């Protein structure tokens, strides 16, 4: 199957930069996935084929890498991604209540996106801020010491 999409010159330039740092093209696979996801939000089948072609590996091999990692998205995601820590310290400190409140407020469970595309909600392994549990990240921002009171205000910042 021939890819319906090609990489943009900008994407190719960024991937070339990574390829120059490693001894073989395929070693830039994860960086290339990150670059394309950064530009397109997620990795579609067509994007995957285009990257694989550029790295001179099979799409199947690249997909085995893409699907291995938690933060390579092989399905479309919303404009904002909520990563709610569901690991042990946040469990002890009550992340389930926070999850319940997000579900009530946004109407989505783990793995789902709001119909207006505003939020995707995902569980995330320990965010490494256990002395301020419960915690979550939205896009690149970390929020800690979550309470039922401050959660609404945090969600309101994202559109």
């Amino acid at each position: 199957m021939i890819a319906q999409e090609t990489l943009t010159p900008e994407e190719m330039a960024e991937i070339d930069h990574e390829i120059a740092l490693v001894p073989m093209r395929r070693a830039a696979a994860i960086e290339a996935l990150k670059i394309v996801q950064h530009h397109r939000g997620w990795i579609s089948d067509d994007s995957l084929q285009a990257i694989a072609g550029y790295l001179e590996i099979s799409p199947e091999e690249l997909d085995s890498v893409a699907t291995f990692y938690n933060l390579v998205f092989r399905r479309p995601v919303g404009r904002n991604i909520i990563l709610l820590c569901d690991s042990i310290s946040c469990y002890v400190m009550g992340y389930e209540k926070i999850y319940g409140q997000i579900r009530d407020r946004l109407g989505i469970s783990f793995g789902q996106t709001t119909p207006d595309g505003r939020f995707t909600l995902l569980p995330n392994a320990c965010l490494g801020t256990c002395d301020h549990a419960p915690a979550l990240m939205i896009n690149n921002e970390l929020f800690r010491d979550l309470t039922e009171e401050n959660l609404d205000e945090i969600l309101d910042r994202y559109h």
Partner: protein
Amino acid sequence: METPLTQHISFDRPCYNLRDYEKNGGYQALRKALSLSPESITNTVQASDLKGRGGAGFNTGMKWSFVPMNGHYPVKYLIANADEMEPGTFKDRMLMEGNPHQLIEGMIVSAFAIQANISYIFLRWAYKKAGRLLTHAIEEAYAAGYLGKNILGTGYNLEMYLHTGVGRYICGEETALLNALEGKRATPRAKPPFPQVSGLFGKPTIVNNVETLCNIPHIINNGPDWFKSLGKGNDAGTKIYGVSGRVKRPGLWELPMGVSMRELIEDCAGGMANGYGFRGALPGGASTDFLVEEHLDINLDYKSVAAAGSRLGTGTMIILDDHTCPVGFVHNLEHFFAQESCGWCTPCREGLPWTEKILLSIERGEGRPEDLQLLETHTRLLGPGNTFCALAPGAMEPLQSALKYFREDFEKHIDQKKCPWR
């Protein structure tokens, strides 16, 4: 009490830039190291008895000593394992956000000791602030001539790259980390060959934890005897200890290696939060055995914690309080391990989800009396020697000790056909 690792860390101000770091003695260890032979640095680190702070506790200098130094290997690598993803562990984040140059200096000295010319920081994706600070600090170090070609006029060359992962617990396993850096699925590799001989792209490679590397400049500056004198009992140096859960003051503290568990929980963390009682603790992250009341006076060093049936691990403790269901607690852990199994070997790929399902059914009141036997069988079948790497055996540690110390709680779920905490 000396606190070399955190002496220049304060979160009331921005972290030190290069100039501030230099003003406070920064990069003096590098200047000293570059005047020594690589072998003598390795010997010094080995003599200091610094043990790996990522969880395994292997002598760092000894690990370095396995790297071939005969000149037949033009390419070698030094990697900082900054993929801190052990649940309940948050110490490396503090070291990187608090003093990025300390890690960079430690890495340059370590790379020089094994004569590596390329170094990577393998940073976990979620550590955005650490990523920004390290990127800036690496740029400063290049501009000052501490990185790049002909470092400080000595003829030694070292490049340093920051690699950000895309999330998977197994990337913290050093051979899986190497596969991730090569752009592959992060499955662990068979050992031997060990990475010291055949690591990244088949070249000799050392992977060290962030906290381990941060100790190196201080050992070079002050010597192995000084480092040994910092520890209280069986082990050398200080350790970043942490406590999370229902205590009055969760946090991190740099303390002499071998401080007692009671001191850490009661003096540093302020004891249990009002209304909560202590039932147990995982002393060093999710993959360590529970310690309970009777262990409160043991010293938190490698040997003493092992003698009590657990592991010091990462030294960051998670408290189980009396308002939290031990079955739910362990189910949460096994859910994590089942999800993060790389799927390479059968016992881990099949056994962990099975374990998780049994625990979930017990937690929901659907457990059968024979399930406890089945869980115990799993702790043996997934234990050391039966799996490709340490993930599944680590996952079994909290489970086997929960079955030992909190057996009544498991039985209550089965007898009452519900979780008594819900």
